[in-house]
């Protein structure tokens, strides 16, 4: 929880700093492609060539970057899970939320998510009394979330607290999926477990979003897509064969280590 707040704070700080002080952020990514032309096609640069052609034909460079970065974020999430022991709802949910955060901005995304979760929990409590079937109840739940989002948009345009211009329906849907997972885990396992997994997912998503949001990384991915893909495969193979301890398990098993008499006598 504390880690989450810290990371979120850092990410938000970085974002604000980036928005206010980096003038070149306004240089569109398309320009980067146009400035760095690739030579003739030689097989190894297929992706690069393809993305260049696509940008020339009018596909947004942003779309291509997001597309190429998706496996990169998934790789980061899997490393964080298998080596560091971060837990989340699978690999796709954190990746999807990361993309959602990228679209809305991290702070706005978190506010939106908080609103959706609160509405969802509230509507669950409310709807339990009516003993409806599951799907109609979910449908009403969705309706409430929509109204909530609408309220959030109107409130923030009125008070101009958050930049909601980037809000769209897809991030909202992704976040609804996450709350669904939360509700399901809470039913199946326990609230504690559900909370843990939700915070883990948010943490992974924020880390993923921060990585995707770094301009340098975006440019690198656009200019050397093959390299990133190759590195991703290498890392995933390494992680896929890792059978060692996860960092979080060190803390978990620390209590299970018996103090040997040898170390005791050394202390005395």
């Amino acid at each position, binding site marked *: 929880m504390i880690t989450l707040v810290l990371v979120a704070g850092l990410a938000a700080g970085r974002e604000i700093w980036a928005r206010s002080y980096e003038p070149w952020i306004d240089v569109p990514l398309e320009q980067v492609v146009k400035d760095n032309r690739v030579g003739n096609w030689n097989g190894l640069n297929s992706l690069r060539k393809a993305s260049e052609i696509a940008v020339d034909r009018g596909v947004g460079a942003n779309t291509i970057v997001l597309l190429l970065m998706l496996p990169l974020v998934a790789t980061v999430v899997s490393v964080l899970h*298998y080596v560091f*022991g971060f837990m989340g709802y699978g690999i796709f949910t954190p990746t999807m939320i990361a993309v959602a955060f990228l679209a809305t901005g991290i702070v706005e995304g978190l506010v939106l998510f908080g609103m959706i979760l609160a509405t969802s929990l509230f509507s669950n409590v409310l709807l339990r009394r009516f003993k409806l079937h599951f799907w109609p109840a979910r449908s009403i739940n969705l309706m409430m979330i929509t109204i909530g989002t609408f309220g959030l948009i109107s409130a923030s345009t009125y008070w101009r607290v958050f930049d909601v211009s980037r809000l769209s329906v897809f991030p909202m849907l992704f976040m609804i999926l996450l709350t669904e997972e939360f509700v399901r885990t809470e039913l*199946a*396992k*326990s609230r*504690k*477990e559900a909370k843990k997994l939700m915070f883990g997912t948010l943490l992974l998503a924020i880390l993923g979003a921060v990585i995707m949001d770094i301009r340098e990384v975006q440019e690198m991915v656009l200019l050397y897509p093959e390299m990133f893909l190759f590195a991703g495969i290498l890392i995933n193979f390494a992680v896929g*064969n*890792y*059978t*060692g*301890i*996860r960092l979080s*398990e*060190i803390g*978990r*098993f*620390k*209590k*299970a*280590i*018996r103090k040997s008499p040898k170390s005791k006598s050394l202390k005395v």
Partner: protein
Amino acid sequence: MFGINLKQYNQFLTINERNKIFLRKNSSEGRAIADSKYRTKKILTEAEVGVPKLIKRFRSWAEVEKFNWEELDGNFVIKPVAGYGGDGIIIIRKSLKSKSLKVESGEIKFQLMNGEKMTVEDLKGHCREILSGKYSLHGIQDGVIVEERIKIHPMFLSLTKSGTPDIRVIVYNKVPVMAMFRIPTAKSGGKANLQQGAMGLGIDLATGITTFGVEGKGDLISKIYDIGKKKLIKVNGIKIPMWKEILETAVKCQKAIPGLGFLGVDVVLDKDKGPVVLEVNARPGLSIQICNKAGLKYRMEKVGDIEVRSIDHAVTLCKYLFGEGFFEKVEQKEKITTVEPIEIIKVKIPKGFKPEMQKSPVLKKGKHRVVEVRAKIDTGAFRSSIDRTLANKLGLLSDGKVLYYRNYRSSLGKHRDRPVVGVTFWLNGKKVMTAVNVADRSKLRTKFLLGRKDLGGFLVSAKTLLPAGGGHLPLKKGEAPKLLKNK
């Protein structure tokens, strides 16, 4: 690094390793059996393992309607076939026949464990909910089983108010490698599941006595509340009744389901029937290592390449290999006993074996028959070793006693395939249960070599000077010990 010795962690089975290496030993067929309580029950009944008796199984609403609920006389349990974590289980204690009350949905017929009263219609409704998949993993259609209620062993009742405490035994390669006693709490909602907040107490495999305690997934605890005594008691030192039978049941389960090479067996003690298997788990959790303060990986590696011959052999193996050194600890606190380089030990003769001893007489020690053997202390050796002829005479090389075969390295080179046997002996009055390797010591004067593994709590005194001829030579008062010179 950061005060953490990573080598200490090598003994533990980690999530990555469990998932990648050990869970692959469980075939999809084996997992399917473990996931269905009905199939587990069927297979275990065939293998003559104790399970709660099946009363009825429902696969459709029609079957629920057709069943004559009135004939049930209380003491039964309704369970979803593919439920997990103990959800959707209702336990009916008795039927209320004489003084039935009328309510909206019919006559009240049954009383649950928590005092709640239900009508036949309520029970049917619950069955319908199970059938429609309310308690199954992905909401898929499920079946219902109605089975006999287990009468919980009185010893367990004093530790919890809600739910059924059970014993989880992890079995690998047909050998029990670790066990814990799981106690449901109010926090876990009566479920004996550590993930939901139940308590787990580690159990010493040799004696069935609890060792350490954990609550939830990783908080160590040292005391639990005893309802009978109305006070907090220590988590260690609780003796689980019928321990040997529990271990045997666990081994039988794995024999019955060969598809599962690595599994957790959940055993409950019934007041009348003894150990009863509730469920087998193809993906046992890893917190059991914390309440035992021991590593699963280390233990699994030890038994990984042993060919287990019988259930007895498996139980003996886990007893001698993974037993805790309780006796040592108790002794150590009292005083440190000294031993001389050559000691007479009393080796226990297995029950029902007739030793062919010519020289040394068979003595009695309590209930056991023992033989006195001259033993040499050798702190340079790790495990003790016993002469092959002597071991044979004492009946230690019989089928059930040989734990496994190992290559041994001595100062003279590599010896191949020495049998390792379980031996119980008394050294200066202290009982030692240990694994001893069998070697050819026929040309040596002492037929038993005591290694440092079995010398815990002893101080070896080398004060007595041994002359070149061997044997003891007591010093006279005031005489300085002579130093032996090498020629």
